[in-house]
């Protein structure tokens, strides 16, 4: 029997954008077990509800993570709106959906770049990030911020996005789609890329279900589950085609995320066609009293926002359950039996967002 050794992986590692530590128990070159430990980036944002009033808390919720910032703000706002029984105008719902799909686009393009970086394809990495830059520019035009948008507020949006601007976005999205299709060809057809992704880190549908995976990780294992199907925001009116794959390996996860990019572009186009005119926010009176659990589909998977309020201007409790937290058990599962050299790819394929997970 080969001797076992433990190799520490992270929290500082070239492939990791954020700090997570894994103790890899190795038998020769094979990983036998992976023990994750988190806690390097905990900021105590949930505790801040006691100090910031429920309107100001939107800014804090947004800062949970830089990539899913719009989704976090949306989730919190959605929960408070349900507690206060606020009827959000339809235009605001549509605009939120458009911005949310745009943030899914930029998150997935960022992920593709990180993946290309992980398997050492530098120019593809730069190419996907160049494409992503155009979406950040669109965000800046629409909201004024590139990463933190501060556009959500309880009752709607703080600024309207004019229809002309939305139409110009659609024009630019055509170009982005074209460029992404070229990049997608390299991801899906390149033999060198395929040799790094195909058959690596297989997660079967049963395992994915048992380990409680969510998002593209679950859909790549062949389970068709997407929180957007619940029909929050404007998703009810849009034609949603959920991308799934049956292979369950790293290649399937790339395929699913690439499929979601094109699907998001399609959703934005549909939403821009259907968006109604009218008010984009509604006045809010009083303080929230009650509790609600809001579920939304973040780029990385299903996220839950629990808000409990007692009728004062401070919310008593806010809790965010993030998709990466649900996917870490699956990560430890797929790491078992893989080669040491494949560990970085596998960590990247779950699309870890540690700052969300630890808040």
């Amino acid at each position: 029997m080969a001797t076992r050794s433990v190799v520490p992986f992270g929290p500082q590692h070239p492939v990791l954008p954020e700090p997570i530590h894994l103790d890899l128990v190795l038998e020769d070159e094979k990983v036998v077990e992976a023990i994750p430990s988190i806690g390097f980036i905990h900021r105590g944002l949930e505790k801040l509800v006691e100090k910031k009033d429920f309107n100001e808390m939107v800014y804090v919720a947004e800062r949970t993570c830089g990539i899913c910032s719009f989704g976090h703000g949306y989730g919190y706002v959605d929960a408070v709106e349900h507690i206060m029984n606020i009827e959000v105008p339809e235009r605001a719902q549509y605009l939120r959906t458009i911005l949310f799909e745009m943030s899914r686009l930029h998150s997935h393009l960022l992920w593709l770049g990180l993946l290309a970086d992980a398997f050492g394809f530098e120019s593809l990495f730069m190419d996907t990030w160049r494409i992503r830059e155009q979406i950040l520019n669109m965000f800046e035009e629409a909201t004024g911020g590139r990463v933190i948008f501060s556009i959500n507020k309880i009752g709607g949006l703080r600024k309207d996005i004019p229809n002309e601007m939305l139409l110009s976005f659609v024009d630019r999205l055509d170009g982005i789609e074209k460029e992404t299709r070229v990049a997608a060809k390299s991801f899906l057809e390149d033999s060198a890329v395929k040799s790094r992704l195909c058959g690596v880190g297989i997660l079967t549908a049963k395992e994915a279900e048992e380990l409680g995976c969510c998002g593209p990780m679950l859909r790549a294992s062949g389970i068709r589950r997407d929180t957007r199907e619940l029909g929050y925001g404007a998703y009810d009116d849009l034609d949603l085609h959920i991308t799934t794959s049956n292979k369950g390996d790293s290649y399937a996860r790339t395929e699913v995320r690439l499929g979601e990019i094109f699907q998001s572009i399609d959703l934005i186009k549909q939403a821009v066609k259907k968006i109604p005119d009218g008010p984009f926010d509604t006045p809010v009176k009083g303080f929230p009293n009650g509790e609600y659990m809001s579920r939304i589909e973040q780029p990385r998977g299903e996220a839950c926002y629990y808000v409990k309020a007692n009728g004062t201007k401070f919310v008593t409790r806010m809790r965010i359950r993030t998709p990466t937290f649900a996917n870490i058990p699956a990560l430890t599962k797929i790491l078992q039996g893989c080669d040491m050299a494949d560990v970085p790819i596998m960590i990247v394929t779950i699309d870890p967002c540690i700052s969300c997970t630890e808040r």
Partner: protein
Amino acid sequence: MGAINYTGKVLKNLFSKPSTKRYPEEPIKFTDRTRGHIENDMDKCVLCGVCQMRCPTGAIKVSKSEGTWAISPFSCIQCSACVDGCPKKCLSMEHEYQEPGNEKITKVFDLTEAQKERLAEQARIAAEKAAAAKAALAAKKAAEENGQNT
């Protein structure tokens, strides 16, 4: 086969302009909504303190007694809640980003002389009105007392 897929892209990149900008020679283009930093037009400010109340990070300090409006730019999160709440529309969100620095400075804005005079004039008029109202009330009371006596 794999190499052929990307060759076209590589050749195109070789003969095209870089997609990055040659900053600072080529200046950044800001959009109309870019949130950079907060400026205050002290010729319009009345030091009402609404911005201070609205600021989620407590970056703004308004002192009526000293006639100053101060912001600590390193605490500001560019949410523009103060700009939205400003009743006199003297606050504005400028496009240029806040300059970096070695220490956490506080930017202090003093009221302009003209605005100081205007505010003093307004305060004087308000005081006169209050005094007149007080005098009228006293006269009314005295008249009522006189009426009761007779």
